[in-house]
């Protein structure tokens, strides 16, 4: 799994890049950015603490990283905590959580991915595309690109004012 900085930078880019061309997306980002970034780290947020409490809980925490549990948890959570609209809050966390799981599954290695089809199948699936040796460069690339995009928006706002 990539670290949370990689997840946050990738999520930032997939929302912020199209918002260069569409003001509606920029408004959405400005209103929902806390939930966008919550979605970006959500599967790790609900599963990793168990692994840090005890490594014995690894198998216990594995399904908490599956789309099934993540989506139900996001739905219930957005009944308590939401921005403007409960459904938009749910879709925001849901979409970016799924994006998180997709990014996790790109990583290459002996560890065979996550239980994508839990509870229907306990088998773990991974796309095995990006090796851990190059992932650190991907993280730095995404972070730099995110920074450039933010600088662009900073100057665009300054010029508009």
């Amino acid at each position, binding site marked *: 799994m990539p670290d949370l900085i990689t997840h946050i930078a990738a999520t930032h880019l997939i929302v912020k890049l199209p918002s260069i061309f569409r003001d509606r997306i920029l408004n959405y980002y400005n209103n929902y950015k806390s939930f966008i970034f919550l979605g970006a780290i959500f599967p790790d947020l609900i599963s990793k603490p168990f692994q840090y409490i005890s490594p014995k809980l690894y198998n216990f925490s594995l399904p908490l990283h599956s789309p099934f*549990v993540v989506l139900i948890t996001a739905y219930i959570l957005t009944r308590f905590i939401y921005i403007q609209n409960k459904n938009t809050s749910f879709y925001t966390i849901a979409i970016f959580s799924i994006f998180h799981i997709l990014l996790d599954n790109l990583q290459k290695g002996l560890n065979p991915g996550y239980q994508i089809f839990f509870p229907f199948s306990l088998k773990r699936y991974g796309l095995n595309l990006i090796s851990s040796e190059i992932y650190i460069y991907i993280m730095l690339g995404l972070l730099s690109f995110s920074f450039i995009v933010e600088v662009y928006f900073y100057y665009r706002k300054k010029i508009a004012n």
Partner: protein
Amino acid sequence: MNWKNITLFLILVILFVLSGLYNQVNQKDITIYLNNPEDNDKQKISVSGTVLKIDNDEILLKDSMYGKEILLKNVYDKYQTNQFINIQGIFHKEGYIEYRKGEEIWDKKIKLILSIFGFLFVVYIFITDYKKINLFK
């Protein structure tokens, strides 16, 4: 917090516990192999842990989940003591694992440190955006 919210929260707790336990019961971890070596003879196994001792092509590995010490045989890849590795192999009823392939997990600490920064960033965004967030309304 009304009854509807309490019910939803309880559903969430039940979902977590049931899905976790369901997986815990159905997944084979190292204890299943060690407790029933006869039944798991020549079965595929994946283990991760720290290299304790190296003796020619044999490695003594401390499993990361339960701290069990497991002997790996026929290890043709080069590892060093204290390295954290992930291996796949064949379990033998005598209690050792015949090594097939493995890799060093070198970036565990880096990922943890970066993840803490990532988490703190999201906390910061939540704090700056707290006026927009409706809590229990």
